[in-house]
């Protein structure tokens, strides 16, 4: 996006430069959340791309009374396109699994191996919290255990859930970072997945 394009979209968001910057950040964050919810890989880039497309259309003369809604419309279309593509990849992936039956377990064992040091990096309290929250108990008993856990930690249930989700996000980021730094092919790495030969 050129600086003129960026200035154009900021002007549409608000005449006040500072307020426009705040709204831009808010728009970008929500677009990122939207793509993440849709299961799109690299939601940050997808959010950038959405705004780029909006800017192009506005530059080409599109009348846009509400930039947020306009961008959401573009994002919906992009998500559909990306999911159609992803669906084709999923079919190829399953075809590959049929071809190499023990691949999934090997792959997941590998992820497990990568996760281990990430888990060890957490503090003992964080490890204990995750283990307590995610222990294998079914149904309503599980809810009761978590309620008591929140009570013990003097937190609301929502605060406890947010804390656990953030810890898991931290672990996921660590796994992705470590995985990408390894040379072997993997669906987590940025290289084309091995099963793409079936596409």
């Amino acid at each position, binding site marked *: 996006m050129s600086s003129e394009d960026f200035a154009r979209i900021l002007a549409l968001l608000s005449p006040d430069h500072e307020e426009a910057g705040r709204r831009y950040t808010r728009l970008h964050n929500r677009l990122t959340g*939207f793509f993440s919810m849709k299961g799109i890989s690299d939601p940050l880039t997808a959010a950038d791309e959405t705004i780029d497309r909006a800017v192009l259309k506005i530059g080409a003369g599109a009348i846009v009374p509400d930039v947020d809604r306009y961008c959401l419309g573009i994002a919906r279309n992009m998500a559909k396109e990306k999911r159609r593509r992803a669906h084709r990849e999923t079919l190829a992936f399953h075809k590959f699994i049929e071809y190499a039956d023990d691949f999934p377990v090997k792959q997941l064992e590998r992820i497990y191996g990568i996760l281990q040091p990430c888990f060890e990096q957490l503090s003992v309290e964080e490890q204990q919290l995750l*283990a*307590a929250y*995610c222990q294998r108990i079914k*149904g309503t008993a599980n809810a009761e255990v978590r309620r008591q856990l929140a009570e013990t930690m003097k937190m609301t249930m929502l605060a406890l859930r947010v804390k656990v989700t953030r810890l898991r996000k931290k672990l996921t980021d660590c796994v*992705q970072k470590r995985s990408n730094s390894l040379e072997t092919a993997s669906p987590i790495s940025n290289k084309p997945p091995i099963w793409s030969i079936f596409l």
Partner: protein
Amino acid sequence: MNDENIIAYLLEELPEDDLERFEDECFAQESWPVEIDLAEQELIDSYLRDELIPERRHRFEQNYLTTEARQERVSIAAALLRRLDEYNASSTVIVSQPPLEPTWTRRLRAFWSRQTWVLRAATAVAVLAIAGSLWLFRTPSPRIFAMLTLTISNNNRAEGNQSSTVKLPPNAEALKISLRLPQPSLPAAGYRVELENDNGETKSVEIAGKDAQSVLVVIPAAQLAQRQYALKLFAIKSDGTEQRVNGTYFFIVE
């Protein structure tokens, strides 16, 4: 916006209009709602723990697991749950804990290979590892349980049935009761158990696990006095409705 609504969205159970309305609602908020990540994480855990009803499990596989990013989320969650199961297993003393590894392997293989999923899930359901009713968060000492196994009785107390008796040791934290299911058992996605004392007062009881033959419940010792109790079992069907299992489990605390 609540968990159920978010899960219905993720599994594409909502009609097209509601789906768009849900997205509009999310987008209208000042920041992207954190509840979505929370509910999604718990949905993934429920799938891996085999806790979804069959219809939802099917929709999870057909409608949710459609992108590489989501497959990656599930595989990382699977690795983490395995790690946490091992962590829990090494931190507490558990009576008759089944081995973890074969279950995990089956679950993962099943997860990645849709064609064989149903068969493997059917056997995976039988395995449950219970690390106690409540994690002793700051005191990782082993928990002490009293154990009891009960079979269902079609009599009532007035008819003078023979109740099992249990004496709780002073240091027991809880009573674990294995309720043997009448065979053939009702098809059930889950169970609910009610504890009734001889004054007719009832309360829900924590279910710690189940398999094809039994349901395991844990009752904190603090909730039990020296008196007679009855446990009533309800089968929860896949559509969410309940059916009382005929008969009652009786026991006496001495």
